[in-house]
């Protein structure tokens, strides 16, 4: 009788272990899934062009029909992340372009500190629905920018507005935020040494 009871006990604890290990697997998987949502979300936004993230829709070599009958106003904005000591602004407030026409504009950044700083610009287009119709062929945001102490740098952007841009959009805003690369900050270099 006792042995029977014991074997029932071991059976129960074995099936409990099986249930627990399966459920823990789900728990760990769902914790990972929470983090996987971050790249999934980016991929989703890239494909759909939602959320003001630009790029991806047009191939760079595509020759676009210039639509002379339409004019779209593109405004330029510049801002800095909280701990970025540069001065950063567009050289022109806005331009009027025909969809399909490549246009070159310039931004300028000045490093007023006495140390070299590397920065990265992050672009955003508003309204969000227009983002997938806005293509940059050249941009200072494609690479990191390093400015020596006191250096002033003029940086070009070449962009095309897709002629398929919905009719009801006549105004776009392109904004950049510059932030310091973590490796460029005092704090991080200090901790590396």
């Amino acid at each position: 009788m006792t042995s029977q009871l014991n074997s029932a006990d071991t059976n129960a604890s074995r099936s409990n272990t099986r249930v627990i290990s399966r459920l823990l697997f789900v728990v760990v998987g769902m914790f990972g899934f929470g983090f996987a949502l971050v790249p999934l979300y980016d991929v989703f936004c890239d494909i759909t062009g939602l959320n003001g993230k630009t790029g991806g829709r047009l191939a760079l070599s595509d020759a676009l029909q210039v639509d002379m009958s339409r004019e779209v106003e593109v405004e330029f904005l510049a801002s800095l992340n909280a701990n970025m000591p540069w001065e950063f602004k567009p050289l022109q407030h806005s331009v009027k372009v025909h969809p399909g026409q490549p246009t070159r504009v310039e931004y300028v950044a000045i490093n007023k500190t006495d140390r070299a700083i590397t920065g990265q610009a992050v672009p955003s287009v508003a309204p969000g629905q227009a983002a997938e119709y806005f293509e940059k062929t050249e941009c200072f945001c494609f690479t990191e920018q390093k400015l020596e102490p006191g250096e002033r740098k003029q940086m070009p952007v070449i962009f095309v507005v897709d002629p398929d841009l919905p009719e009801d959009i006549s105004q776009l805003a392109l904004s950049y935020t510059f932030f310091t690369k973590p490796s460029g900050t005092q704090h991080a270099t200090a901790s590396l040494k």
Partner: protein
Amino acid sequence: MSAVIEETHEHHDHKPTGIGRWLFSTNHKDIGTMYLWFSFIMFFVGGSMALVIRAELFQPGLQLIEPEFFNQMTTLHGLIMVFGVIMPAFVGLANWMVPMMIGAPDMALPRMNNWSFWLLPGAFGLLIASLVMSLMGMGSAPNFGWTFYAPLSTTYGPSSTDFFIFSVHLMGISSIMGAINIIATIMNMRAPGMTYMKMPIFVWTWFITAYLLIAVMPVLAGVVTMMLMDRHFGTSFFNAAGGGDPVLFQHVFWFFGHPEVYIMILPSFGIISQIVPTFARKKIFGYSSMVYATASIAFLSFIVWAHHMFTTGMPVAGELFFMYATMLIAIPTGVKVFNWVSTMWKGSMTFETPMLFAIAFIFLFTIGGFTGLMLCIAPADFQYHDTYFVVAHFHYVLVTGAAFGIMAGVYYWIPKWTGNMYDEKLGKLHFWLTAISSNVLFFPMHFVGLAGMPRRIPDYSLQFAEFNAMATVGAFVFGFSQLIFLYNVLKTQRGGVKATSKVWEGAEGLEWTLPSPAPFHSFTTPPTVK
């Protein structure tokens, strides 16, 4: 041989005494009791915060508290009521009732059970410590609303946000362990003959709820971990300047948050499905449709999260998808409501306190369900979003829904727990005061919300004054009526008319075959279910 067994059996039935009985408890009944008392205490803590909020809103203008403190009150009220009251109360009821209902001697993992309870006082100690520090003038308690949207909780969060983050981590671990325990118990410890489709509906709803918990609590842990990393480790999950996105926070949060609202209602559905047949003296109408409806609600809860985010600038296709998916939930929920009504149809009904709460639940939860349907219509939601209409909606489903379900369950099972009948007169008094005052409290919120009063504000335009004054009166009556409930529970614990083992004439199920009060160790030899 048999004498030896007798002796060990007697030894097992011996209750440990003193504080150790509770600290080191591995007994499902004791742990269930601790969960329920913890939830009851938190109910009064969170309720006092609600009264501070309502007192400030009694009249337009700022009278009693600063707006900063008001924000801390709304945040902590929400967090405590969701994680400290509704969820622990359900886990407490599951601890007490699930083993007894399926004929098991205890939970499958009794030591883990002890741990999952004792994490909770620590978790809420951390959260309430942030409020204590705020009252002592040492910086703000969490003030970003219970949904803790980034960047309010990341870039602009007060230092106490870290207390909040670790508190949520602890609650999450506690809920996950509780859920694993319940699933293991239901899967492995059913009495012979207790097939899945013979389990009481309460057990079924908890079985499904436990799966929801396991699926989404880790996502909540993930989102607060991302917040912690954004705040201290230089990542930019939710910071647009660093390439992240604050809207991502809302997606991840609501991927947890929507199943969470079903976690807070499904066990109440289960309680009501036990009570209505007992007092209608009929079998539940459509048992298997009840099970399938619960499962469909659980499945749908995973694909509707963005209906909380219609105004974030989603494409029309997304809005339509989430709108239609949300409307679909009305179908299984409707199945449940109609099944409860059909169970009562031509039944020989009596109206003891648990039944009164159950009927009020069916009626008032349905109102909350309908306002939910209104909110799920995307174009209309642009008007309702973040107004008091939303506050009215979720208080109808959580207070007159989930909390009424819990109260009904407590009145229904307390004779089994204590061996004494509760005071029926006091119970009825508690019910009528609660039912009427909760409507005085929450119904006017629909009107001010539709007229455009935003939620989470300490001051409002003059035209909302009358309805807000009404709501505040309702809130105070509601709050103080709960003292009757507390008194009634304490009185029942101390004595009263002895309850029979069946307690209710129409009660069916294994738990009613045990004597009242249920012995410390029950079903040491499993019963056989035909």
